[in-house]
């Protein structure tokens, strides 16, 4: 079975090699593809120097467009499982085996690595946990299934989900919206406990200034998803 690890990267030159080494060490059966979303630093050169397969986007598509590129690549190249991981070293490939096992054994369409099931590891800032709590409530209230970590960027999909994501994927801040889309379509979403590290370098795509905009936009997107 062909398995792919999608790593969207925007200015991740300091951590991208470590991230890929971590995958090669703990999940060697996964192929890696880095999506360079028009980084302004030398992420692309570093990937090429280290023989890391990379898709270089000529224009900045945002996290959603970059990740969707990875899913499109997975579909075109016959991968049956695709997992996305952040390029900043937050996620640990040690969990990929366990996530794959869960995906297959529970016959799930998506497995999400959640920070908040066991509440171990880096728990993000309290203000972000409030936002995540709101998505937790919305997923339960609108779609009947509580998702403890809807913003997690560590998620594994089967072929059916890959196909859905290739068809349509939100441009920015896609994580909570896509989970809700799966729930609406009665796809099986399973969360497993993982520990995440604090990012090693780079900055989050969501600054404080943008967080209000983020909450409004994602909440609206989820409400509209419910109306679809």
């Amino acid at each position, binding site marked *: 079975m062909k398995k792919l690890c999608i790593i969207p990267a925007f200015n991740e030159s300091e951590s991208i090699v470590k991230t890929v080494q971590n995958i090669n060490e703990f999940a060697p059966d996964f192929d890696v593809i880095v999506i360079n979303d028009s980084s302004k630093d030398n992420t692309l050169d570093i990937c090429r120097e280290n023989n890391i397969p990379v898709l270089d986007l*000529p224009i900045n598509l945002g996290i959603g467009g970059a990740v969707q590129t990875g899913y499109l690549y997975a579909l075109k190249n016959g991968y049956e499982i695709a997992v996305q991981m952040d390029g900043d070293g937050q996620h640990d490939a040690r969990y990929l085996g366990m996530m794959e096992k869960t995906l297959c054994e529970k016959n799930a369409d998506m497995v999400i690595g959640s920070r908040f099931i066991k509440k171990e590891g880096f728990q993000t800032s309290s203000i972000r946990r409030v936002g995540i709590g709101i998505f937790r409530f919305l997923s339960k209230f609108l779609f009947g299934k509580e998702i403890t970590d809807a913003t997690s960027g560590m998620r594994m999909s089967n072929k059916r989900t890959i196909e859905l994501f290739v068809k349509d994927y*939100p441009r920015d801040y896609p994580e909570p919206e896509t989970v809700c889309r799966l729930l609406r379509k009665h796809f099986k979403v399973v969360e497993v406990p993982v520990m995440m590290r604090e990012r090693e370098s780079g900055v989050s795509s969501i600054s404080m200034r943008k967080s209000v905009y983020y909450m409004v936009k994602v909440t609206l997107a989820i409400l509209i998803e419910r109306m679809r």
Partner: protein
Amino acid sequence: MSLRLQIILLVFLGIGLAVVVNMVRKRILELKYVLVWLFADLVLVILVLFPSLIKGITRILGIQSTMNMIFFLGFLLSLVIIFTLTVAISKVTAEVRRMSQTIAMLDKKLLEAGSENTDQ
């Protein structure tokens, strides 16, 4: 503002809101660019429901009736929307240019790779 006018405006704003949301629902519009429309619609709904909210500003600006103030605000909000569209179009123009340039270079590379193969 007469009650009749208030009702008419609310109906229009309500229809506008429903149309926009429905188009997002059908993926015709991108939510990102619709946010400013939703914001404008919401502001106008609040002001039509509670015209007293802007009585103060109306007096300061020397505008005769609250109604005129609401039209004036609607006009200002339209300007904001048009401006965000100008920004969006500028960004798309730059992106299309970069994409064409990239494709042109890829095309050259492909041609060169092709002719090398036939040479051998």
